[in-house]
């Protein structure tokens, strides 16, 4: 099955999801992007350049690590982890960003804009822009700017301008809107580096294509390290890019089950979550340029969402997943904030790994299911990012008293120095 082999007149559609829902003024821009992307995809040297760039700059291929301790402790399936946390800038976001950087060069544009929620994508984009010599603006909800200062600090030091978006809920979705507003004004010299497999066609396909490097590597590595394919593959799902990335390695393998893990927040029925597919609260709608399942009310206005992982805290989901969910090709589960904290502690102590809070959602579901599987079965988890950049969030989540008094001491020091 090639999910990107669109039927006539349905380009950009996955079942009933996807499409392009943009203001007319962007029509030419998105056409130009589509044409350029088609060229890139058809040109094997582009992919080769992309792989080489990631090898030399970001350390790809990232390894696959066997979690012997955790597997033993859980007493079921053998657990393997794909280590995209080892990428430069600390997450899989760099893959997509570097790919779009190359494409932006081909487009002949010198400015890039991007939305960011947790800051990971903004951090990656600012890094790419420094490397490619692009001017860079990052839109980020004001609430996120306030709580994700470390990433903002790095983005600014990498030379990006970070713009705090004061509209709406002042979080990721509002940053996306603001990006669109910039884009409809400056499309002539500006490329919009969308950070996940959402938005108007060709973004879902394009981001998935760049991220497919994860799955390509992982499939080969699993065959080499274990002699066979995994029985189940787990990934967290925010917009869906890291999950699409790893799943593409196995999507045509009948016996590999693919499981997406969404932000369960405070749990089913709480309405404080960001599960579009695992829970029943989302419905089909059209926003931010594409059609998919959104967490919205009956009139089509978006609901507030929540997850301890800022990178999962988003209203919509990758239209490809909406389709694969309908088809039963991917199973979706949710991990609650509480489960995530426990799984993070367990993973740190038993394996010395610190997955990002986002990635920990995949661990939660895998950890729940591993004990129900046979010891000769194999699980692969995608560790999309590292958690050490999330220290403020994790320390808060774990309610660490020593951390808090350290911060209070630092604040006192800064206040003293001012006087």
């Amino acid at each position, binding site marked *: 099955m090639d999910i990107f082999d669109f039927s006539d007149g349905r380009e950009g559609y996955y079942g009933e999801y996807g499409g*392009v829902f*943009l203001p*007319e003024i962007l029509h030419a821009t998105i056409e130009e992007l589509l044409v350029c992307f088609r060229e890139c995809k058809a040109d094997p040297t582009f992919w080769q350049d992309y792989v080489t760039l990631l090898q030399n700059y970001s350390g790809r291929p990232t390894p696959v690590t066997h979690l012997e301790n955790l597997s033993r402790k859980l007493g079921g399936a053998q657990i393997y982890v794909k280590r995209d946390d080892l990428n430069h800038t600390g997450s899989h976001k760099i893959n997509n960003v570097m790919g779009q950087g190359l494409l932006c060069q081909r487009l002949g544009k010198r400015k890039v804009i991007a939305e960011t929620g947790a800051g990971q994508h903004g951090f990656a984009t600012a890094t790419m822009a420094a490397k490619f010599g692009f001017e860079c603006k990052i839109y980020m909800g004001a609430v996120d700017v306030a709580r994700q200062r470390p990433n903002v600090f790095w983005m600014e030091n990498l030379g990006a301008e970070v713009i705090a978006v004061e509209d709406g809920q002042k979080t990721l979705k509002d940053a996306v809107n603001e990006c*669109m*507003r910039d884009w409809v*004004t400056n499309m002539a010299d500006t490329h919009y580096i969308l950070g996940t497999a959402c938005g108007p066609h060709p973004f879902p396909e394009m981001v998935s294509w760049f991220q497919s490097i994860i799955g390509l590597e992982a499939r080969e590595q699993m065959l080499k390290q274990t002699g066979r394919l995994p029985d189940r593959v787990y990934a967290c799902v925010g917009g869906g890019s890291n999950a699409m990335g790893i799943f593409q390695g196995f999507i045509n393998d009948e016996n590999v089950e693919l499981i997406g893990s969404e932000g369960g927040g405070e749990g089913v029925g709480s309405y404080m979550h960001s599960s579009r597919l695992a829970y029943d609260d989302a419905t089909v709608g059209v926003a*931010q340029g594409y059609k998919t399942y959104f967490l919205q009310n009956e*009139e089509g206005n978006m609901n507030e969402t929540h997850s301890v992982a800022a990178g999962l805290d988003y209203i919509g989901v990758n239209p490809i997943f909406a389709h694969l969910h309908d088809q039963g090709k991917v199973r979706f589960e949710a991990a609650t904030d509480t489960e995530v904290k426990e799984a993070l502690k367990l993973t740190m102590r038993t394996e010395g790994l610190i997955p990002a809070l986002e990635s920990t959602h995949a661990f939660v579901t895998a950890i729940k299911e591993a004990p129900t599987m046979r010891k000769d079965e194999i699980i692969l988890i995608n560790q999309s990012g590292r958690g050490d950049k999330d220290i403020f969030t994790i320390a808060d989540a774990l309610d660490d008293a020593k951390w808090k008094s350290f911060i209070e001491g630092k604040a006192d020091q800064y206040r003293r120095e001012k006087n």
Partner: protein
Amino acid sequence: MGLQSFIAERKQSKDILVMAHVVCGYPSFEENMQELEIMAEAGVDLVELQFPFSEPSADGPLFVHANEESLKAGTTVDQCFDFMRQVSGRFPFKVLMMGYYNTAFKMGEATFVRRVKEAGGVGYILPDLPIEESANLHRLSAQADIEPIILMTPTSSDKRLAQLGSVSRGMVYVVARKGVTGSKTNMGDDVLALIERCRQHTDVPMGVGFGISSKSDLDFLRGSADIAIVGTAALKTWQQSGASGLRKFFAELMA
């Protein structure tokens, strides 16, 4: 009477018509009504009633804020249609629904068309709905005799303008410049050239919008455009100087 014949009729006595805009429920439906009274008095010909949406990505800051505040105050789609019905019954100008596609999509396209029609609307503007996605809605609209307003833009190629022109009905909305609603457009040769290009691809009347705020803008467009579309400037005036300000604004604009 359909939109296009209404425009033709009005154009017999005026060389340029004016389309105005309110965001339903912002600052409140009462104030909306006061604004509309002033617009009617001033002789405004067409009005867009914007249904507020949580993700107004094609709007500028003032309208974004208006959408947000209106939703916060609890504005519903039902209230917007009710209001549309009252407005279209009360004033001589024609009313268009303006909003984002999700509002139509969520209730179903057929329901949407029926409700616009029932509320006395003559058409709708859905800026995030490209023509590729409009076939069914256009068909339903044609059946109901209301008009889907197509947007033509400075970035549209001739080929694209031809496509847009071929499905345009009622009127087209010429976007005078790149960007979102709200900032000033420099009325100059490019705007005239754009209108000229658009003209070659459609016969329906042509409204020009984005950044129109003064009599001189109108004078500039007179003779090339059929309708001047005034949005943000009116809302800004209302916020800054209320009813008397808005009255003065339209008086001067349409003098």
